[in-house]
């Protein structure tokens, strides 16, 4: 079983995640989409660990780190989101445009 189906699946998930992250208006869903994208990356890592040029556990170790980082990221993301919600009263991404000129 070669590596291409896994990579294709990962690519599909990544693109869906990307679309979600950039189009959804609800901040939480954006966070979720980013999680999905990270997962796609994880899948790639593990797929390469098994079928890659140098099969070994490095991929898996790395995916562990990836999962840790993702968890930390979600935690901080939700914290910021809640804080933002408390200040702004909204979780709509389009309203968060204070960076505007």
């Amino acid at each position, binding site marked *: 079983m070669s590596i291409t189906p896994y990579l294709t699946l990962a690519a599909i998930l990544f693109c869906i995640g*990307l679309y979600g*992250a*950039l*189009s959804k208006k609800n901040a939480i869903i954006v966070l979720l989409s980013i999680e999905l994208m990270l997962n796609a990356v994880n899948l790639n890592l593990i797929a390469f660990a098994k079928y890659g040029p140098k099969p070994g556990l490095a991929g898996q170790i790395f995916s562990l780190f990836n999962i840790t980082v993702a968890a930390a990221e979600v935690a901080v993301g939700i914290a910021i989101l809640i804080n933002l919600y408390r200040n702004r009263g909204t979780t709509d*991404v*389009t309203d*968060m*445009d*204070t*960076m*505007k*000129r």
Partner: protein
Amino acid sequence: MANDFTSYAWLVPLFPLLAFLVLIAAGRQLREAGAYISIVAMLASFVLALLIFFERLGHTTDYTWNQLKWLTIGDFQLNMGFEVTNLNALMLVIVTLVSLLVNIYSKGYMHGDERVNVFFSYIQLFSFAMLGLVISVNVLELYIFWELVGVCSFLLVGFWYFKPEARAAAKKAFIVTRVGDVGLFLGMLLLFWYMPGHSLDFSAIHNAFSQGKIDPSIATWIAILVFVGAMGKSGQFPLHTWLPDAMEGPTPISALIHAATMVAAGVYLVARTMDIFQASPDAMLVVAYVGGFTAIFAATIGTAQNDIKRVLAYSTVSQLGYMMMALGLGAATAGIFHLFTHAFFKALLFLGAGSVIHAVHTQDIREMGGLAGKMKITAWTFAIGALALSGIVPLSGFWSKDAILSAAFEHNQLLFWVGLIAAFFTAFYMARLFFLVFAGKPRSDAHAHESPAPFTFPLVVLAVLAVIAGFVFTPFNGWLGHWLGDHAEAETANWTVMILSTLAGLLGIGLGYVMYGKNSVSRDIVAGNAPWLYTLVYRKYYIDELYDVVFVRGLRLIGKAFELFDIYIVDGIVRLCSAAVVGIGRLGLRLQNGQVQTYGLATLLGLLILALALAGRRFFHLG
């Protein structure tokens, strides 16, 4: 002894120049004295001119002096100086005499005007320029004085500047003459390049052209261009429109400039450069035909005018046409002789008209009438002038016109008949003018009285001259021809021409008497049954309107078009560039709307483009 006065010929123009400077500098303080200074200056230069004339009577060699180093162009040296030939000497006398008389006359005529000194200074400047023109040694010097004369006519016509008509007339005079001047200018340039050694002196021109060093086509070009210059100044057919309008200026000016001197300059120029014209026969033809046509054309218009000065103006144009015709036919002496005689009786007529206007304060002949009784001298002198103009036997007009007509008779039958008909018309409108103004009962209530001495003295002198001037060059004694060194035409009394011209003259006078004197024949024969012809002639064949539409409005249109082009295209492009830059800037602005997702999208697209570009290289090899 031979040349001692001639060598001082350059003094003749100097006196008026000095007078001009004095009048300009101390114009306001002088008040009365200004007139006397200008008269004295003119008298001095007249006396000197007479002395030169008598000195020149003896021999025919020209006296030239051109050591004044004026301009160096590379290896070629352009000098200035003066030249006295018989023709110049004659012209000097005519000009100084007439301007002297006009000065005297205008002392009286301009008495009331507070800017009288300015007037006299302009006259002195004009005299200086005219005299300078007459004795100039090369074409460039002539051109300089030529333009100066144009400016003086402009200043004098526009003397009463507060009148809008005067302003328009002055502008028109200057611009139309300017058109002519450009012709002369181009002719001069051609001369400069095609004359051996680039010299522009008349003597050099005489030698080059008479020996035929210049090939005919170039000679024709130069001749025509010079003739265009002459047409502009002398008011020949296409460029004649400014002359009648120039009547806006004071009457002495009309007399001096627009009768005797300036307008004659054109004829003088052609005479002076006769060798060029001789070199190209078809140029001669052009000059003849233009002259002939102008003669009859102006004569017809003259019959329908109601303003006394305009009638005389058109008669001047017509007589100048005669002179040009003479020159065109090769009869240079006849042309010059007619110029000589015309200067006197036309100046006489104008000054007479001036005293009439001074008396009745209007220029419209329909309001005048029955002045003969009240203004004895003016009436008689005016009569002599009119008869001379109409070419009645003893008077000078007859001889000069006869000379021209006989020349026409020999060379060109058509022109002869044209000249004859024009003579008839001339006689007719002079008679009409005389009878309307002097005969019949007075139509306006103004109490006319005879003008004071300064008016009448010049009139009498001119009248005498008008009578005797004729005998200088008659079929019987061709002294003038020989003197002028133009021995070409053998002087044979051509009786048929004499008889015919006298008949034409008498017929014209008779008709004039019948229509306007006894008005047994109703005045508006022409106006009655051919009103359109009358209005056509009265409106000067609508030439003025034609010029106005074609040139003035045309130029304005082109100008407007260019202006629109300038504002919208040239400036438009500049504004377009700035607008483009601003537009692009604003486009970029819309991208910065502060939303992370937009930035994300932009990054994604950027990445894709980059990837495609990199990946794409393998597929289609660009550079």
